């Protein structure tokens, strides 16, 4: 048997083919991957947009006029601007009031005078 005939036999040999069920499973996974990747990209884009919106607010809470508790504050220039109807007004900042510390809540009267021998 010469090389040409042997190579022809090899080329014409019934090499194992992918089973139909394996092919279907792989098809399903590839198709699902495309959808999953797009869904993942959309989720990332939505998360980025949300982050930008929150970050753009600069830590302030935005509330329609009249729906948020009115803070006690003195008259300022922004009050005149905010009095226009259908405007969003910055009412308060989550950082506007610092929480009292333990030191401030300590009763100074409970401390005695520092004495020396």
């Amino acid at each position, binding site marked *: *048997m010469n*090389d040409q005939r*042997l*190579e022809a*036999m*090899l*080329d*014409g*040999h*019934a*090499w*194992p*083919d*992918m*089973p139909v069920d*394996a*092919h279907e*499973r*792989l*098809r399903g*996974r*590839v*198709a*699902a*991957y*495309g*959808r999953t*990747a*797009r*869904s993942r990209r959309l989720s990332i884009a939505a998360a980025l947009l949300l982050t930008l919106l929150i970050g753009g607010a600069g830590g302030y809470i935005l509330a329609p006029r009249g729906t948020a508790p009115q803070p006690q504050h003195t008259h300022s220039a922004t009050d005149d601007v905010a009095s226009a109807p259908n405007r969003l007004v910055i009412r308060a900042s989550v950082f506007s009031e610092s929480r009292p510390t333990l030191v401030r809540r300590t009763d100074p009267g409970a401390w005695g005078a520092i004495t020396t021998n």
Partner: protein
Amino acid sequence: MGPARPNPIARAWLTALAERRGAWWSYALHLTSNEPDAEDLVQTMLTTMLERGIAPDDVAHAYPFRVMRNVHLTRARREHTQRAHAPRLVRTSDDPPDTPDLARALDALTDEQREVITLKHACGLTLEQISRVTDTPLGTVAGRHRRALEALRARLASIEEIRP
């Protein structure tokens, strides 16, 4: 609203899978020796391509074979597994009548020789492409192919001789 369609790269790989599944399967089966691992290997190759955003037309015809080989070698090294010596090329009922002994002769080849024969005749790669896939010098690949043909010819001749 119907189900979302796969993205363009995934659609391109679906087409490639339909066209090249036989070649990918033959080589994956040669590497892994069993169908579940072969399926996993083809899936890993496809996933690698999709994750990298590589379309079938972006890479050479031989590139998926290289990816499968690298993935398989990495796994084999990690798991320290010995390759099974079970017959890798299982004959099917669709075998042409003139090749009943060819599968047995192929199983008698060394791993390197069988890899070259599989890539050339089952996957349709050239010796140069096989050289790139296996990261082996072209002369070595050509030598393995020549010796594989010699071994096959001798094996087939001996089968003919002992046949009553």
